[in-house]
């Protein structure tokens, strides 16, 4: 890199920088590779644009000196951090160096990374996104002897991590076994991804679990992607490799502004805004009990290839994805009729809440593609607290400040239906001719409201059908449109042009609303 004349002139600088680049040494690096993992410097190199990484704190570490106070060797700090560019935009990036003491126990009092570390201050100070490449196990009892005392938890706390969540996009990739502090930090982010099979996330690992509960469990069974991503939603997405994780990070950031004082970046769209897809006219089956592929429907409407799904394997009765309409970032929330008939359960409610808050914070307009029959019913749903989580979703939807458009594809019932619109603002509700809505569907409603009448009839089943047939016409969406209780019913093939126009219109509103979004009140 530098020529030999510079090396001689600043030999100590050169020596110390070389030592930093060695990380934990060849053997440790080899072990990292054997475990199917990259070193932190390799990870940063693959994630960021070209050679845009400008390191800060390169010389932090622990020096060993001889009796004459001459430097014998220096071990770098177990963390690498600095400034870099992703898609030409500045980001703060840092990660544990697992090859140095497993990424733990900073030698110095002032830390580059971890909670309360320099890199978080850096992201806050310059108002730029933060990317955490997490590969460390967190606190260790080995510090006890070195420090001479035990540290009160939170002395190096999460205050800055929490503050950042309202200011700049924070992204975390879990690239090793994360427990304790690193696991906490991974979760204090707007988007998190882990590698299936080589990374784990848990509150505490197998040795602590064995000690506390007498339970023997393998670390991947306890906190691998199957549990942490698919079942618990602790981490949002999984990737098959570290390279794919970096791709997902770049994709996520491409929809985000650098901070909440800016708009999301608009890109040139090669997909014409007036594209009318004929398949939209027939994608919803005539038969109301037949499910269809909502994921495919949404992709027919959005800019070709622009969709990035968040939490695809968790809370599957709702689909949440970042996408573009006419080059402009939007947040899509679409009920999935293939899973529980689209009913909202505790997991899909939780997933929807996070996504709504994400888009509201970063000024990304929301488009709801609605086909929800209501909250999930039954004993398991009640035991899981579906109602409370569902009402929390209603509450968050009601507080949204970002422009939202509600497009009813088929069903929109009850309180879960309420979680798909925001009546505090213009409350733009569009619908397809296949739409139907109400407090509850006519079928279930008749059985409940006309029970006496039905039971008294000579043929109860026929009487029930008779009353249903009588009421059904009143449930037509066209009647609601006559009353202007829904803004417009559109030809499904017009969906893309209509949405593109309203999303483009939202730009003026977004300009007026940049900055921090206040959060107040208590969620149910």
């Amino acid at each position, binding site marked *: 890199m530098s020529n030999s004349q510079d090396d001689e002139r600043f030999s100590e600088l050169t020596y110390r920088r070389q030592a930093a680049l060695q990380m934990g040494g060849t053997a440790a690096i080899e072990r990292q590779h054997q475990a199917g993992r990259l070193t932190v410097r390799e990870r940063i190199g693959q994630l960021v644009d070209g050679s845009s990484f400008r390191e800060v704190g390169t010389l932090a570490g622990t020096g060993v000196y001889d009796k004459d106070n001459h430097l014998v060797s220096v071990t770098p700090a177990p963390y690498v951090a600095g400034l870099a560019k992703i898609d030409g935009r500045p980001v703060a990036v840092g990660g544990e160096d697992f090859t140095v003491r497993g990424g733990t126990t900073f030698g110095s009092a002032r830390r580059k990374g971890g909670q309360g570390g320099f890199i978080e201050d850096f992201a806050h100070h310059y108002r730029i996104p933060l990317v955490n490449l997490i590969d460390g196990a967190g606190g260790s009892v080995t510090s006890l002897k070195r420090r001479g005392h035990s540290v009160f938890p939170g002395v190096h706390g999460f205050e800055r991590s929490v503050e950042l969540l309202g200011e700049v996009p924070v992204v975390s990739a879990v690239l090793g076994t994360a427990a304790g502090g690193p696991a906490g930090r991974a979760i204090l982010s707007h988007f998190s991804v882990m590698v299936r099979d080589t990374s784990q996330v848990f509150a505490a690992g197998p040795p602590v679990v064995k000690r506390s509960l007498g339970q023997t469990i393998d670390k991947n069974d306890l906190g691998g992607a199957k549990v942490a991503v698919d079942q618990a939603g602790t981490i949002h997405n999984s990737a098959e490799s570290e390279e794919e994780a970096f791709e997902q990070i770049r994709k996520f950031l491409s929809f985000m502004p650098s901070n909440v004082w800016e708009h999301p970046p608009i890109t040139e769209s090669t997909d014409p805004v007036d594209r009318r897809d004929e398949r939209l006219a027939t994608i919803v089956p005539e*038969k109301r*009990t*037949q*499910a269809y592929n909502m994921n495919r429907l949404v992709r027919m409407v959005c800019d070709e290839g622009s969709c990035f799904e968040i939490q695809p394997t968790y809370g599957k009765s709702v689909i949440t994805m970042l996408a573009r309409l006419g080059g402009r970032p939007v947040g899509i929330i679409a009920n999935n*009729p*293939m*899973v*529980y*008939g689209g*009913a909202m359960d505790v997991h899909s409610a939780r997933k929807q809440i996070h996504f709504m808050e994400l888009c509201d914070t970063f000024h990304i307009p929301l488009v709801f593609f609605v086909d929800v029959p209501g909250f999930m019913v039954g004993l398991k749903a009640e035991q899981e607290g579906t109602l409370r989580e569902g009402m929390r979703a209603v509450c968050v939807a009601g507080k949204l400040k970002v422009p939202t458009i509600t497009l009813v594809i088929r069903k929109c019932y009850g309180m879960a239906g309420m979680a798909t619109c925001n009546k505090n603002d213009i409350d733009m509700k569009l619908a397809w001719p296949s739409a139907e809505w109400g407090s509850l569907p006519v079928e279930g409603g008749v059985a409940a409201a006309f029970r006496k009448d039905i039971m008294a009839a000579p043929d109860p089943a026929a009487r029930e059908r008779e009353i249903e047939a009588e009421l059904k016409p009143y449930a037509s969406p066209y009647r609601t449109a006559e009353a202007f209780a829904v803004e417009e019913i559109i030809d499904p093939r017009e969906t893309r042009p209509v949405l593109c126009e309203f999303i483009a219109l939202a730009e003026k509103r977004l300009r007026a609303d940049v900055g921090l979004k206040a959060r107040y009140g208590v969620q149910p």
Partner: protein
Amino acid sequence: MSAVEIVSPVTGTVWKIERAVGDKVEAGDVIMVLESMKMEIPVESDAAGVIASFNVEVGNSVDEDQPLCVVES
């Protein structure tokens, strides 16, 4: 030649099997229909190929991610 396992997208019941062993399918073709939560859920082939075998019959209860059939491409 590779064998692609088609798994169930939901927990439900096998309601109708639309194709037979030996049938040629394209990616996206409906192989069977499941019933879940009173909805008919179509199960599509992930790949183009020939249906090699079925793991389930009409009336079986299936769990999410349970293998339903194998398509060889």
